[in-house]
């Protein structure tokens, strides 16, 4: 923080206290995760669907690090999701059936790819950036679709075997293990991401989003932070992809199609970027809506998704969560206490 700014009243003079205030868990956050876990006990709940919601939420949260906190739009985020999904698929196919270590391995590969991508695009902006990220997505998709010997092409990988989690919980068709596995992994990664964005590093990302020139004069490594943000976002997206492979035991090219990149962007925008929870809220709205609409009109449901998108960017420019938040703030007439 600059010494020129008069510190707001509730921010303590000591930096450590400031970050401690930021990092304090709020009651609604605990309620949110408790409610998500509670879904398991609701009778008639489709647990496979819920685990898909959680995985998409994690995926959208990974994009949030990049877009919401660093302000970099990416039209190719499915690259990292798909990389994680295929790495986990290869692991399961060639004998590395233990899921948790395979998940870490998938994250590491995706992170390396993310770091490289960040290095590539750190000087490109605007339409050029959209084009490059989209182009990278198309390259990978084309590659996977055509390397039929390696990836099975259109049919996807066959014969993926995933061992029981911790040697105790087998993946079953009711999605019991899938649900808890996805939820616990997503929660742990969420906590890690939360610590990260509430740290000085997170503050530097927001600073570079708001005013990169000023951050440079403050001595912040703005360009290096781009590749670091890409790396972190890619690792999280890779984890989401690996989760999807492991819970469904299948992986096919649609996991890294441009459609998926667009969908995750839509999810994040619906929920609202820049507050980690936006991705999860967006995923709940999007996936449940998708499930409902595609069951009542299999051909035309994309019309409603398109309309939803247009309405969201027209009337809730920042997404559902920030708009609700602003409404709430106005209602109780209190100044917002977090910088994002």
């Amino acid at each position, binding site marked *: 923080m600059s010494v020129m700014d008069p510190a707001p009243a509730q921010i303590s003079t000591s930096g450590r206290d400031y970050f401690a205030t930021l990092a304090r868990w709020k009651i609604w956050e605990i309620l949110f995760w408790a409610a998500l876990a509670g879904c398991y006990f609701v009778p008639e709940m489709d647990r496979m669907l819920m685990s898909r919601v959680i995985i998409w939420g994690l995926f959208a949260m990974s994009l949030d690090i990049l877009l919401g906190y660093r302000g970099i739009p990416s039209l190719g985020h499915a690259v990292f999701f798909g990389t994680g999904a295929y790495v986990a698929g290869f692991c399961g196919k060639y004998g590395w059936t233990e899921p948790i270590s395979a998940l870490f391995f998938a994250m590491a590969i995706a992170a390396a790819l993310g770091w490289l991508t960040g290095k590539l695009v750190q000087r490109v902006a605007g*339409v050029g950036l959209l084009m490059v990220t989209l*182009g990278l997505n198309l390259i990978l998709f084309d590659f996977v679709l055509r390397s039929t010997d390696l990836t099975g092409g259109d049919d996807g990988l066959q014969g993926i075997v995933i061992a029981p989690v911790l040697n105790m919980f087998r993946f079953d068709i009711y999605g019991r293990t899938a649900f808890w596995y996805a939820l616990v992994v997503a929660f742990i990664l969420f906590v890690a991401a939360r610590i990260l964005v509430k740290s000085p590093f997170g503050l530097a990302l927001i600073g570079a989003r708001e005013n990169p020139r000023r951050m440079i004069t403050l001595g912040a490594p703005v360009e290096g932070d781009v590749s670091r943000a890409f790396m972190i976002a890619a690792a999280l997206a890779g984890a989401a992809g690996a989760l999807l492979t492991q819970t469904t035991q299948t992986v096919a090219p649609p996991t890294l199609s441009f459609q998926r990149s667009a969908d995750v962007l839509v999810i994040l925008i619906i929920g609202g970027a820049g507050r980690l929870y936006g991705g999860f809220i967006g995923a709940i709205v999007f996936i449940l809506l998708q499930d409902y609409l595609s069951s009542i009109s299999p051909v035309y449901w994309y019309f409603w998704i398109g309309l939803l998108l247009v309405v969201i960017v027209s009337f809730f420019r920042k997404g559902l969560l920030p708009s609700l938040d602003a409404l709430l703030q106005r209602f109780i007439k209190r100044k917002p206490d977090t910088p994002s």
Partner: protein
Amino acid sequence: MASILTVLFNGVAYGFLLFVMSVGLSVTLGMMNFVNLAQASFSMLGGYILVTAMQGYGLPFLLCLPIVFVLVGVVSVVVERLIFRHFYKTDDLTQVLLTIGLVFMSIAMATYVWGGTYQRFDMPSWIIGQKEIFGLTLETYRIFLVGFGAVMAVALIFGLERTQLGAMVRACVDNRRVAGACGLNTELIFAFTFAIGGGLAGLGGALSANLLGLDPNFPLRYLVYILIVVSVGGMGTITGTLIAALALGIADVLGKYYFPQFGSFIIYLLTVAFMLWRPHGLLGRGA
């Protein structure tokens, strides 16, 4: 030797098609910085209007083209006035999301009105078949495309460089605020340019329907090509768009003819490399 020239010629024909589809987007991007992915939907609309006019009303092919141009131009200016103009001050991403939402909607609407299958065309007999030119056997339709595209390109470059309206448009592209301060009605000029660009996109779609096939997923298939042309050529430049479109058309046809196992891979790779080398495109202005 003859075959490589034929392939090259097919690439040029394809390139002119891409040029007609994307030139409107390039100019409006340069002028208002508005990322309009729905340009591809205008192209699809053009294709469907052509089908309806030819198959439904039995109008001759050449008469259908001006009808397509006018109708799609009107539709695009209506969309611009109703929706797009509220989004000129927002960031790239909001515009991308808004217009991709419209693309999704247009796909569903096209499926509803025209059905989800590929459209069948009965082109007039004079345009089907092949002709011998300089010892090369070329398809008549592609010869027509090259001629049409070349005339369009010359007319657009001439119109922009030599007419008063073109000067106004160039002024708005260079600096919209100063142009406004000089007394130009920038909103009106923009709406007009948008109409012409949309009409051209429709024309491109109509001309391509016979060659590339027309179904409701047309916008998603060609969106990427339009974006490549615009970003490689540089926004706000007709010449840059023309060069990029021809290069893309030739590279795509050559690649698919000689290295079919790679598909579009080479194109995407070249585009990404090019964008990293020149982030503002071939003839685009910095920032």
